[in-house]
């Protein structure tokens, strides 16, 4: 089922200025000390030399984190240079930025290095929400950063937003989206705030200090989706929206992220990065020291690996497919699930379109449940 598309390359930058209380990505707070960065860059270069052989040219490169923009422009450029020889033309090259780090010089350097897509962690346009989220920028900084990016003439800009903060009023979420839409980004990622185990936010929830409300979150999801679709965006994955381009059917989706959802091979570099070559999935040591040590000792950073058999591939294709507007092929779902497919369609959660089961907005909101229904053995 893996497509014949070119693979994608991901480089994980495991540093942040400081940790946000809701974040469960692997990243190390720099807290002023940039001592670890040099070693990290060497390790990635080393991993690349070992790992890249045998992979065809990549047509996407995504430098994510953590916060890649805490690196110096030259350091980011050096990461890009590492892989440059293996990039197909044209390639989508994305870098994640924190609004607080955006300066003309950084943008110029990225532009010069060939970056053609930026993902900006705006999260909110309300200063009180940004403070609650523990972010180090305010909304004015985000607006400034976007203006600078537009001046630097990047082809594509994506904004990240977070919603469903405890007690968040629907009108506030709508206002956030309206501000975003007014800035006309090519891409929007809207994430419902998730209370992830092990985070400071999770501890607060466990103590009962904050209460999450799934029904309220659902309402915000639907509301947001409607607003963005009305504004000319395509809701193409549970949390992702792309501006529709001039040609019918064309849009400015993230090509890199789509590779994850279509089970296209991706190579991940850096600590905690995951890779998939079509048959196996593997993942690197999660912490920076373990990652560096494993590379130094074995020339390999893998902490685990699994082979994906046909049954596993089917479950993956279902779980991923039902999260995207393009849906999952009915051939993958299987004929014995006809009953469940009917129930899902009757409930208005999906439609059959060109041999695929495509979730509606209400369906995207229940993608995990739908995957459970379709993934299970048919009832007798």
């Amino acid at each position, binding site marked *: 089922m893996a497509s014949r598309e070119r693979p994608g390359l991901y480089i994980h930058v495991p540093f942040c200025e400081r940790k946000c209380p809701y974040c469960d990505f692997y990243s190390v707070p720099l807290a002023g000390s940039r001592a670890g960065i040099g070693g990290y860059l060497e390790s990635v270069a080393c991993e690349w030399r070992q790992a890249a052989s045998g992979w065809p040219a990549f047509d996407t490169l995504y430098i994510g984190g953590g916060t890649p923009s805490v690196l110096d422009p030259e350091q980011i450029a050096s990461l890009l240079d590492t892989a440059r020889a293996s990039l197909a033309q044209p390639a989508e090259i994305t870098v994640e930025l924190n609004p607080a780090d955006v300066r003309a010089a950084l943008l110029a350097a990225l532009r010069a290095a060939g970056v053609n897509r930026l993902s900006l962690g705006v999260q909110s346009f309300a200063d009180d929400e940004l403070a609650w989220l523990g972010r180090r920028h305010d909304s004015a900084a985000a607006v400034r950063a976007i203006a600078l990016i537009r001046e630097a003439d990047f082809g594509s800009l994506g904004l990240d937003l977070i919603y469903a903060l405890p007690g968040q009023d629907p009108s506030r979420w709508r206002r956030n989206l309206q501000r975003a839409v007014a800035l006309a980004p090519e891409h929007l990622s809207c994430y419902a705030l998730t209370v992830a185990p092990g985070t400071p936010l999770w501890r607060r929830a466990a103590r009962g200090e904050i209460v999450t409300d799934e029904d309220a979150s659902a309402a915000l999801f639907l509301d947001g989706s409607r607003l963005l679709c009305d504004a000319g965006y395509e809701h193409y994955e549970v949390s992702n929206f792309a501006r529709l381009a001039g040609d019918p059917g064309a849009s400015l989706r993230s090509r890199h992220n789509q590779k994850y959802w279509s089970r296209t091979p991706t190579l991940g570099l850096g600590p905690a990065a*995951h890779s998939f070559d079509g048959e196996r999935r593997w993942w690197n040591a999660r912490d920076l020291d373990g990652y560096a040590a494993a590379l130094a000792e074995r020339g390999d950073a893998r902490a685990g690996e*699994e082979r994906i058999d046909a049954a*596993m591939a089917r*479950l993956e294709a279902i779980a991923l497919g039902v999260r995207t507007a393009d849906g999952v092929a009915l051939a993958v779902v299987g004929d014995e699930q006809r009953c469940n497919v009917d129930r899902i369609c009757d409930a208005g959660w999906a439609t059959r379109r060109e041999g695929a089961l495509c979730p509606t907005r209400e369906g995207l909101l229940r993608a*995990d449940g739908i995957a459970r229904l379709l993934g299970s053995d048919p009832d007798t």
Partner: protein
Amino acid sequence: MRQTRNFSIVAHIDHGKSTLADRLIQKAGLISERDFHDQLLDDMDIERERGITIKSNTVTLPYRDEAGQDYDLNLIDTPGHVDFTYEVSRALAACEGVLLLIDATQGVEAQTLAHLYSALEHDLTIVPVINKIDLKAADVERVKEQIGSDLGLDPDEAVLISAKTGQGVEEILKAIVERIPAPAQRSAEPLACLVFDAYYDSFRGTVVSFRIVSGRLEPGDVIRFFSNGATHTVEEIGRFSLKHKPTRAMQAGDVGYLIAGIKTVSDVLIGDTFTHKHCPAEKPLPGFKEVKPVVFSSIYPISSDDYPALSDAMEKYKLNDAALTYQKDTSIALGQGFRCGFLGLLHLEVAQERLEREYGQSIIMTMPSVRYRFVLSNGQAVEVDNPAHFPDPVQVRVSEEPFILTSIMIPDRYMGAVMQLCLDCRGVNSSFSYPAPGRMEIHFDLPLAEVIFDFYDKLKSITQGYGSFDYELIGYRPSDLVKLDILVNSEPVDALATMIHRDRARTRALQICKRLKDEIPRQMFKIAIQGAIGSTIIARTNISAFRKDVTAKCYGGDVSRKRKLLEKQKRGKKRMKMVGQVQIPQSAFVSVLRTQKD
């Protein structure tokens, strides 16, 4: 030449049987002070936790009288609770006499009389014993009077003791050897041994408790069971001396255990007779009266795969609980299981606990039911204890349910609340008496079905634990009975069906619907839960569907995790029951059926 005496200690619950056994064991020097603890013979965990005897226990006490004559005294401590009277009746078959204990502060109670009658039926010598005379509230004169008037025994023959302090225990021993006759000397006749108890030991096979009525028995003998003709070679016989104590030979009158490599549990039947294969006794001894269960419930393994293990455990457990009756039962929702009959609610609880603790089974029990009677329009009378067999209402001419006469003892300040409770439980024909200042005895005729549901727990709670209660079956009375079905998305869940009085159906239906609502997790689709009598819906509730069931992010590192969750739920679904396209976790049945009493 040693002599033998076989006797049981019988009494109403808590009158001090096990405590007296303690004193006798200590007197016989069977145990050191260091190893001793109270109610020594109550060795099961449940017995210790509940402070009551559940199983009869035999122990052989060596005793030398003043004249220097040596005796083996085979003592059987019996349970006092009415649910375990079958244990007592089997013990009596191994005895020539009983110590009938009466608590000096309580006097004669229901089980005192019941045990007296069965001892008389067995032609046993009865030694009345007044216990707890150390207590301030002891009223020996009143109890003596009762012994004369209520029991028809000679009050002057009563032995006065305190099992707690040990006062009077010497006289007890004297009374045992002097008044209780020695077993009949029939050692020369062919072997006939009565099996009165057994248990399964995974190393040694079935261990049988028996009484030799005639003949002699030695290791190496080949024995044959009358019921099925199975033969076995005796490996070991012995006496109960707290631990098993092998002996070389036993003879008529002796009580002991037998090990003969009996791995087939079904070879042993309580009440059966075994004899020698060669030179056998002519006919079996009279066995035991069949027990009539009064409370019924089905037992299912929590995981249907465990049915074979449960089946094996039931067989072994039955060996040690002869009062249990069971047969196969099946449920669409819960799979294969057993329909069981119990002598009462405590018996049911004990069986459930022992199956779980001693036999490691994880089980669900359906709602307990009594046995109802129906006369059908064709004149046929049927008895039904399983809702699955509830007759077609159109065919029913008369329906009847069992009634009990209860006797409830309470401090009189709780009178109002207890009266109300009994009336709420459809009680009729009340009467009272005041056996002692401040204490009150209330009598009511109550449907047994009400009592097995939650009566006792309610009584306990409204009397802050001071209420005690006792009952006897008094027969069947006409009643308006219905079958209550529980439907999930319009499909009946057979394991949750109950037979119930029409007036109680709605409350019960609402209660079950609410429990299910609490226990069935929200799912993709809305779930309707209903209670129904026939096609009439009498209670309903809904479980709303998830509005949202999706994680926000799914990138490279999340794919494996997502897939593993799906694989896990696929495995987990094997433990789910599908009813009306709804997955009902087994745990929902467990909690609906287990928490039925609050």
